[in-house]
C-alpha cells in the first residue's frame, strides 16, 4: 500500500511534559487506522500536530509525499487533510451551509456563491450518505447531526485523509455503529481515515489496523485481524487489566424503597409509577437507552426532584421531599451523571471539592469558619485511599483527568460510609484502567453493606456489577431480573419496552 500520510519522529513537549516522543506513523490508501490509547496518552496532541494546530518540536509530516509546513491548518486543509474535532468547531447560531462554507472562498471576494456551495454540499451529502438540511440552524441539530456537519465540512474542502478525534464520545451505541458504516463506505470512495479512540470494542469492529500510544510513545502496531481486545487492552494500559468480578454474598434488608413514584414536571410525565427496592449489600442496575427517564431518576435520588405522587423511603423514613442536603444527612451519597457540571466545581481546589457536601459538619467548620487543616488532611486521605493521581489538595480539580476526578468524587461519597449510593453513569468517558478502579470501589462498598443503585447505558457494565437489573423505558421501570438470568436477548427486549407486566396497569 502507498502511504498517503506519514508522520516521522514527531516529538512535542509542553514545558517539562513530553506529550509525544519520537512517534512515527503511516497511513495507507483506503485504510482505516485506529489510534488507540488511554486519556492523556498523547493521541489528540499528535493529531493536532498533523492538522497544524500545534507545531512539533521535532519530526515532520508528509501528505501524499509532500512535507507540510508546521503549525498551519490552512496548509493541511489544502493538502487534503480534514479533521473532525471531538469538541465540534461549529457556530450554533449559523446555518449548516454557513458552517460548511467558512474559509472555502477567498476573503477578498465581493460576493459569495451560495448557490454553487449548496449544490456541492448536497452532492457530497448524497454521495456519502450523510443527509443534512443546509438551511437548518446548527443549534437545533442533535449531536449526531452536528457530527455529520463536522464531517461534511471536511469533505467539502476535498479532504482525502480524514482524522476523527473520539468520534463516538458523544454518540449512543446505534449512532456510533451507523457512523462506522458510513466511514467504511468512504474508504470505498478512496478516502483514508484515522480515528482516535479508547474504546476497545469499536477499534476491534471498525479498524483495519491499530496503533497504540502509551505515555506519548508508540508502543505497538497491529493488524486488527491479528490481535484481540485483551492484547490491545494490555498494550494500552501497559499491564494486564481485568475488571473485578462480583462475588456472591448474602443480601440484607431493604435500604431504599421507591413506592409507585410518579414525577410530573411542567406538564410532562418524567417518571411513571415506578417501584424498586435496593437492599443492603446489593447493586441494582438500571439499564436503558439514554433519554428514557434516567435524568429524572437521578434527580429524584439526588434530592433535586420530588415525587409528585408515591413515596421514597430510606431506612423506612420518607425522604422524597428532603432536598439534596437533607438526603445527604439521611445517609445517601451521589455520584452524578455529569461530573463536570454537577460533581465538581472545576475552578476550585481538590480539598474544597472534597468537603463541599459536608461544609456544615462540625468536622470541617467551626463558628462559621472552614477548618482548612482538617479539610486538607481529609483530601490527602482521599487522594491516597482512592489512588487519585496527578493531584494534591491544592490542585484545581479541573486539571484532573476524568478518571481521577471520578475517583475523587467516588471517594468523597464513600468516605462517610453511606447506607445508599447512587452511581449515575459512573464510568462514562473513562478509559479501561479507570473503569476497573471505579468498579473495584463500587464492589468494595457493596461488600461493606452499602445499597447501590447503578444507572448505566453500558450493558456489559450493568451485567458485571449488578445483582438485579431493571430496565427504564419512557419513564417506566420493568420488573427486576436476577443478573444470572439476564442474557443479552432478554435485556434487549426489556430495553425495547417488552416485559411481562403482572399488573395490567
Amino acid at each position, binding site marked *: 500500500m502507498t502511504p498517503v500520510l506519514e508522520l516521522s519522529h514527531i516529538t512535542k513537549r509542553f514545558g517539562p511534559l513530553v506529550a509525544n516522543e519520537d512517534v512515527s506513523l503511516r497511513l495507507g490508501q483506503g485504510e482505516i487506522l485506529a489510534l488507540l490509547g488511554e486519556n492523556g496518552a498523547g493521541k489528540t496532541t499528535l493529531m*493536532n500536530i498533523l492538522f497544524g*494546530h*500545534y507545531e512539533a518540536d521535532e519530526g515532520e509530516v508528509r501528505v501524499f509525499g509532500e512535507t507540510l509546513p508546521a503549525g*498551519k*491548518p*490552512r*496548509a*493541511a*486543509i*489544502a493538502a487534503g487533510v480534514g*479533521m473532525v*474535532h471531538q*469538541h465540534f*468547531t*461549529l*457556530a*450554533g*447560531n*449559523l446555518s449548516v451551509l*454557513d*458552517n460548511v*462554507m*467558512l*474559509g*472555502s*472562498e*477567498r*476573503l*477578498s*471576494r*465581493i*460576493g*459569495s456563491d451560495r448557490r454553487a456551495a449548496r449544490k456541492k454540499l448536497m452532492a457530497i451529502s448524497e454521495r456519502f450518505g450523510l443527509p443534512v438540511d443546509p438551511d437548518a440552524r446548527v443549534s437545533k441539530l442533535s449531536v449526531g447531526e452536528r457530527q455529520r456537519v463536522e464531517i461534511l*465540512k471536511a469533505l467539502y*474542502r476535498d479532504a482525502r485523509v480524514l482524522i476523527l478525534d473520539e468520534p463516538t464520545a458523544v454518540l449512543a451505541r446505534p449512532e456510533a455503529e451507523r457512523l462506522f458504516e458510513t466511514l467504511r463506505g468512504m474508504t470505498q470512495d478512496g478516502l483514508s481515515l484515522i480515528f482516535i479512540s479508547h474504546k476497545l470494542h469499536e477499534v476491534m469492529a471498525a479498524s483495519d489496523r491499530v496503533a497504540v500510544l502509551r505515555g506519548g510513545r508508540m508502543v505497538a502496531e497491529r493488524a486488527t485481524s491479528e490481535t484481540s481486545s485483551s492484547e490491545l487492552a494490555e498494550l494500552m494500559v501497559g499491564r494486564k487489566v481485568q475488571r473485578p468480578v462480583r462475588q456472591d454474598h448474602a443480601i440484607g434488608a431493604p435500604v431504599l424503597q421507591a413506592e409507585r413514584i410518579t414525577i410530573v414536571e411542567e406538564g410532562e410525565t418524567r417518571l411513571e409509577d415506578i417501584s424498586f427496592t435496593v437492599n443492603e449489600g446489593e447493586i441494582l442496575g438500571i439499564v436503558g437507552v439514554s433519554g428514557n427517564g434516567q435524568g429524572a431518576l437521578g434527580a429524584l435520588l439526588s434530592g433535586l426532584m420530588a415525587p409528585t405522587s408515591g413515596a421514597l423511603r430510606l431506612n423506612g423514613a420518607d425522604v422524597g421531599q428532603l432536598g439534596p442536603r437533607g438526603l445527604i444527612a439521611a445517609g445517601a451519597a451521589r455520584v452524578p451523571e455529569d461530573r463536570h457540571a454537577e460533581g465538581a466545581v472545576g475552578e476550585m481546589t481538590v480539598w474544597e471539592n472534597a468537603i463541599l457536601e459536608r461544609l456544615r459538619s462540625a468536622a470541617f467548620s467551626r463558628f462559621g469558619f472552614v477548618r482548612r487543616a482538617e479539610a486538607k488532611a481529609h483530601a490527602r486521605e482521599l487522594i491516597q485511599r482512592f489512588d487519585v493521581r496527578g493531584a494534591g489538595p491544592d490542585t484545581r480539580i479541573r486539571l484532573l483527568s476524568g478518571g481521577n476526578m471520578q475517583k475523587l468524587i467516588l471517594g468523597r461519597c464513600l468516605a462517610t460510609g453511606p447506607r445508599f449510593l447512587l452511581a449515575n453513569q459512573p464510568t462514562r468517558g473513562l478509559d479501561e484502567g479507570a473503569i476497573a478502579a471505579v468498579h473495584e470501589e463500587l464492589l468494595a462498598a457493596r461488600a461493606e453493606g452499602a445499597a447501590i443503585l447503578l444507572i448505566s447505558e453500558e450493558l456489559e457494565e450493568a451485567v458485571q456489577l449488578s445483582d438485579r437489573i431493571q430496565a427504564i423505558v419512557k419513564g417506566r421501570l420493568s420488573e427486576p431480573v436476577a443478573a444470572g438470568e439476564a442474557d443479552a436477548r432478554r435485556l434487549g427486549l426489556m430495553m425495547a419496552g417488552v416485559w411481562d407486566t403482572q399488573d395490567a396497569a
Partner: protein
Amino acid sequence: MIEALDLLMSESLWAAVLRIATPLIFGVLGALLCERSGVLNLGIEGIMTMGAMTGWLTVYLGGDLWMGLVIAALAGALMGLLHAGLTVPLGLSQHVSGLGITLFASALAYYLYRLIVEVGETPPTIEPFRPYAVPVLSDIPVLGPVLFTQTAPTYLALVTVAVLAYVLARTPLGLAIRMTGENPHAVEAQGLNPNALRVGAVVAGSALMGLGGAFLTTAAFNSFFPEMVQGRGWICIALVVFASWQPGKALVGALLFAFFDAYQLRLQTVVEGVPYQLFLMAPYVLSIVALILVARRAEVPEALMAPYRRGER
C-alpha cells in the same frame, strides 16, 4: 393634543429625525461590527469624542470637510487598534479596556483641543456641511425634503448600512467575521486567523464610530466642546442589542430613538405645565421599553467577550 399630532405631520420633524439619527447610525454600525467579531467596544463614547474633535480640528486648520471625516475615521481606527491590541492578542477584559479607552480618548481629545486651539469667550467655529438637495429626488413632495435634503454624511451613513449589511450577510469575509464572533475555534480549524479578523473588525468598527463623532462637529454643529457626545455611544451599545446584531434593524433602532428625541423636543413647545426634564428623559425610557420588548429574543454572538488563544479550549 391636536397640536401634538400636527407635529407628526411636519416635514421638519422627519428631517430632524434623520439628522439626529446619523451619528447613532455610524456608532451603532461600528459597535455592531466589533461585537459581531466577538469584541465588545465600550470605548465608543471616547472614540466618538475623539472623532468629533479631530474632524473639526482638521477643518479648523484648513483641511476641507471630507478630509475632516477621513482624519476622524483614522483617529477612531487608531483608538480601535489600541482596544484591539489590549483585548485580542493580550486577551484583557473587554469591559475594563473599553471603559479605559473612553476615559482616555475623551480626555486626550479635550487636551489636544486646548493645546492647539485658542478658546475665547465663545468656542471657534468652522463652516460645516450644508444640506444638499439631491437633484430631481428632492422635488418629490414630503419625501424629498425629508430624505433628499440632508447633509452628505447622512447619505454616507445610509449607504454604510447597506454596505455593512451586504458584507456581513453575503461575502466570505462577512461570514468569517460572524463565525469569529460565534466560535473562533471553528475559524481556526478552517485555516483562517480569528485574531486577525477580530483586530480588523474592531479597527474598522472604531473608524465608523469616529465618523459618527465627526458628524456632530462638521454637520450638526460647527464647533467642538468636550461633553458634546452626550452618551450617544452608550445608546449605540444598547441599540446593538435592540437590533439583534443586524445592520438593518440597527438603522430602525437609531431612527426610532431619533424620532423620540426629535418629537420630545417639539412637544416641549406645545405642551405646557410639564417640566421639560421629563421630555428629555422620554427617549431613554422608551428605548429601554423597546429594548425589553425586542431583546429577549436576541441572539448574542456566542463568543462575545471571550478572548481566543490558540491551542486552548
